């Protein structure tokens, strides 16, 4: 969390309590200012809708809020929400796990990497969305085709970050720890993994929106339940408020996941000097 540097006069320095209070005040003020552009956008949207743009195209914030409330209160959207949530969590976790294991293995085994890197590169180039119909044939129209699509999208991002992270570990740190008596598994635990942690976390952060894309595209393609289906049905029914309600829930998912990633980052990377902290911090 960045706080603007404070001008400390002698009087202020003399009372640390007052200074702490000021810091909290400033932080709250910054948050308030941060919310303003969003609020302005919503007000503009509300005002312009029906006046300059037809409401059938863009709906309006109040309608969306009402639609969202209806969908949740009536329980209409709950099964979709649960299904999509499951797909997201499973796809993300599987993709991240495979990415970490694969990236680490290839980085530590240069010969293996020499053989497999071109293949991984080739697969990386394939537009993953094009795999959606294939996955539906393979895994059915249930949750697993969406889990697979999300996992594949997440995998490559995490894979490349971990691969690069482990390969750029300072060789001297590895040698020194080896001289101190570390076995291969101890090297992994004390040197390679912590050194790669910033890259792992960056990959995990970047992968969050991609897992959502994977799941929603899968659901668009063919599904029996899920927010993607909810959105595409609302769209087919000329219900823009419904479309936006679905998108709002997806946004919430991303928001929550990002907050989780930020907490994880703070915990795992607390050893880093302050100026190295990630610029992108969503509270």
């Amino acid at each position: 969390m960045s706080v603007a540097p404070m001008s400390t006069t002698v009087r202020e320095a003399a009372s640390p309590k007052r200074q702490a209070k000021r810091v909290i005040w400033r932080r709250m003020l910054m948050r308030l200012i941060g919310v303003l552009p969003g609020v302005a956008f919503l007000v503009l949207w509300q005002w312009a809708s029906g006046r300059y743009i037809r409401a059938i195209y863009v709906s309006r914030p109040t309608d969306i809020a009402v639609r969202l409330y209806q969908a949740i209160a009536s329980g209409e959207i709950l099964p979709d929400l649960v299904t999509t949530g499951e797909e997201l969590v499973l796809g993300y976790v599987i993709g991240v796990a495979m990415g970490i294991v694969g990236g680490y293995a290839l980085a530590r085994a240069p010969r293996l990497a020499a053989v497999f890197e071109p293949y991984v590169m080739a697969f990386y180039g394939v537009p993953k969305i094009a795999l959606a119909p294939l996955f539906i044939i393979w895994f059915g129209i249930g949750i697993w085709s969406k889990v697979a699509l999300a996992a594949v999208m997440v995998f490559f991002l995490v894979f490349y970050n971990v691969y690069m992270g482990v390969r750029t570990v300072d060789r001297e740190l590895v040698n020194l720890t080896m001289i101190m008596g570390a076995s291969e598994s101890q090297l992994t635990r004390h040197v390679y993994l912590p050194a790669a942690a910033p890259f792992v976390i960056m990959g995990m952060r970047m992968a969050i929106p991609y897992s959502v894309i994977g799941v929603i595209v899968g659901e668009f393609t063919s599904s029996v339940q899920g927010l993607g289906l909810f959105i595409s049905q609302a769209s087919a029914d000329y219900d823009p408020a419904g479309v936006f309600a679905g998108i709002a829930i997806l946004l919430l998912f991303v928001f929550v996941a990002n907050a989780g990633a930020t907490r994880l980052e703070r915990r795992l990377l607390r050893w880093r000097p302050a100026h190295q902290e990630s610029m992108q911090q969503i509270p």
Partner: protein
Amino acid sequence: MTTKGGIDLANDPRPLGPVGEGRSRARDEAIVSPVLAFENIIQDFRSPQGDGALRVLDGISFDVKPGQFTAVVGPSGCGKSTLLQMAAGLLFPTFGSVHYQGQKITTVNRSIGFVPQQAQLLPWKTLRENVELSLVLRHVAAKEREQRVREILAAVGLSGFENHYPHQLSGGMQKRASIARTLIYAPAVVLMDEPFGALDAQTRMIMQNDLQTLWARQGTTILFVTHDLTEAILLADNVILLGRQPTRLKADIAVPLERPRNVFQPFHTAGFAELYDEVWTIFQSEIGRPAALTNVG
């Protein structure tokens, strides 16, 4: 393998090339067996043009005796750090061999300690975690670890900073921590690669003085690489003087100065000036001239 009467060249442990002065001298005095023995080390690196080999070390032989402080001095680029890499088992000479306690080094040498040029603490570990790492790797019980960390941190003057991360420590403190984490597992030999080169002049003198005290207390063997003549003479029992590339051993000089030595005012130490002049006379001819490049095929 039967080679009747003849010499089995492939298995003959004796070096074929020239034998340096240091080695022959050590043989004459062979009362204590050396803890580290460099035997006719030749090291070629691929030349920058890629059209041959650049001979960096050209037949270096010397011994490191247990409990002694040996300093290796040479002009920059002469390959003195390369010798340490070999003693650590991180690099193997093109020809010749390094022996540790009589055994030829063929893999990473886990019996030694290494203090690198930069402190190289693990940035994701606190000072305590860094210093106790070697004990954790050896599965030493937590209680004993705590005790030993407390002792060694007190010895290097870092008590109270246990929970700081490396970036929160000054350069001198990081260097102390780097030495502490090496001494904590009491390695038979400590290799030091220009450990004080990156420090400011005042911090360096203080560190030199502290190292002298620590060494006197711990009684460990130290092989210390530096380009600083004063530092070498002030700290060492023995100064190995290397020439310029392709590097040969120029001299192996005993330093009979009384201990503890005054590192802050070296010229007040009786005998220092004469010794310095002697070493300088040999060293003078080796610096200031560009290193000659030799193509060896």
